[in-house]
Structure formats: C-alpha cells, structure tokens
C-alpha cells in the first residue's frame, strides 16, 4: 500500500513529529499576532515556534496563513513584486514540511 512517494511523506512527517504540537484551533488563535509580527519585519517563527511548527505540518492552516498574509500586505500597499519577493524569501528560508 505504501508507494515511494507515500513512504517519503510518512518518513519526513515522522522525523518532524514532536511530543508537543499545537492543533489547528490553538494555531488559529495565535495567527493574527503571528502575521502582524511578520508584517512588522520581526522573526515570528522564532518568537512563536509552535505556531511555525504547526504551519509547516498542516496544509489547511498554511493555506489560510498565506492568504491572510497576502490580504494584509495588499491592504498595506505592498506591490505584486514585493509580494513575490516575500514569498520567495519565505520559501527558501523554511525547511519544507510534508504537504
């Protein structure tokens, strides 16, 4: 039942598994503070590591986090080019988790 692709996903997920992890509701509760730190140019991932950890593991929350960040950046007048650079920086900085 496990194909190579599944096996890779499973092994990476197990390697990233921690005893303590936030679940989606706890992450959601912290998300507004987290994105405001990011918008202020602060290291939100370092300040709120459990939120960062959850975002790396949970596709649903990651999608919503990205959408919120983009909406707020646009509201603040970020241009598309700045948005793309921000996304690229984020992509290269993070160790990508399982989808």
């Amino acid at each position, binding site marked *: *039942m496990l*194909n190579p692709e599944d096996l890779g996903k*499973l092994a990476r*997920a*197990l390697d990233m598994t921690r005893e303590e992890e936030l679940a989606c509701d706890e992450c959601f509760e912290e998300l507004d503070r987290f994105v405001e730190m990011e918008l202020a140019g602060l290291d939100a991932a370092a300040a709120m590591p459990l939120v960062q950890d959850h975002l790396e593991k949970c596709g*649903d929350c990651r999608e919503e986090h990205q959408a*919120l960040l983009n909406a707020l950046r646009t509201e603040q007048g970020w241009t598309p080019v700045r948005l793309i650079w921000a996304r690229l920086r984020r992509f290269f900085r993070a160790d990508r988790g399982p989808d």
Partner: protein
Amino acid sequence: MKKRTNEQWLAELRGRERDRATEDLRAVLVRGLKVTFAGRVRGLDETAEDLAQDALIRILNNLDSFRGESRFTTWAQRVAVRVAYTELRRRRWRDVSLQEVIERHEGSGRGLGALTDRASSPERETERKMMVETLQRFIAEELTERQREAMVAVMYEGMPLEEAARRIDTNRNALYKLLHDARKKLKKRIEAEGLSSGEVLEAIGEG
C-alpha cells in the same frame, strides 16, 4: 473609510454607529477576499461578497472573544479567511467520498514494485523493501482503522483536514490530534525497535 482604533471599532460595531462600521468592515473583508481568490474562483465579486457576509455574521457574534492582541481588522480578516477556505474546500471536494479517495490510493498500482525504479543497487533495494515492510507492519499493529484511513486521505492523497474530518463526523482540530497521535505512536514504535526516523529516511534514500 475612516481610521479606527480597536476600541473605536468595538464601540461603533456595538453602538449607534453600527451600520456604518459594519459596512466599513464588510468593505475591508471583501477587499481581502478578492486578493485571496483573484483568478481562482468564478464570479469573484459575488463570491467575495457572499463569503464576507458569512464572515461578518460570525465576527459580529463573536466580538467578545476579541482579546485586543492584534489590530481588530487583522483579527476579523483571519476569521474571513477561515470562513472562505472552509466554503471553498467544501465546494471543491463536494463530490468526493472518503471511500473513493482510499480506494483510489489502494488501486493506484504504485505498490512495492515501483520501488525498483528508484533503487540504485540490489542491496539498496532490499534495504528499502525491508523498511517498507517494517513500516507497514507498524502501521497495521499500532494504528486504528480511523487513523490509517485519515493518514491515507490527508497525508498521501492531499485531502484537506477539514474535508476528511467532515466525512468521519469529527472536526479539523480533533483530526489533527488524531493524526498527531498516530505519528507519535509510529515514531515511538520505530524507536522501540532500535531505529530512528532519521534512519528510516536514510534507508529510503531521502536522508
């Protein structure tokens, strides 16, 4: 639109200026949702208005839960994004049953044989096959059927947690915990057998 502090937003949404504040908030939500879904949904204007309305109702019913730890509009947009994604995922996965996803995965024909393609040497291939068999045994012995099915749907087939949860009569938060428990159990079993997750990655050529 006039600028408001958090206190002004709350006071106006609860007071005599409610209509104007509500309209301003609606406009903020619609703008944010249009950014999020531009090019991704048909009828963007109408969809954004509908989703903003649903979010607005939820926000106004939950003003007491705003703790003032962020800007009020950030807090509100966070709710809108969640409401919007919940609805869009529901639409996208509407016609797909959990059983279908699991059967598709089982019938995908990419079983153990497919490993041969990526093996660099016979020894490597043997090691990898043994690791697959070991992990499959651990999965069978350690996880409940519910955990196994959720793992297939979410981890391997990419079904959103929220949609998988709906199909097994639970919610997204509880399903995350169920999968977290499953991962912890498997990790502990691997360690109890004298292995580490790093060694598993190594054996399958991902380390």
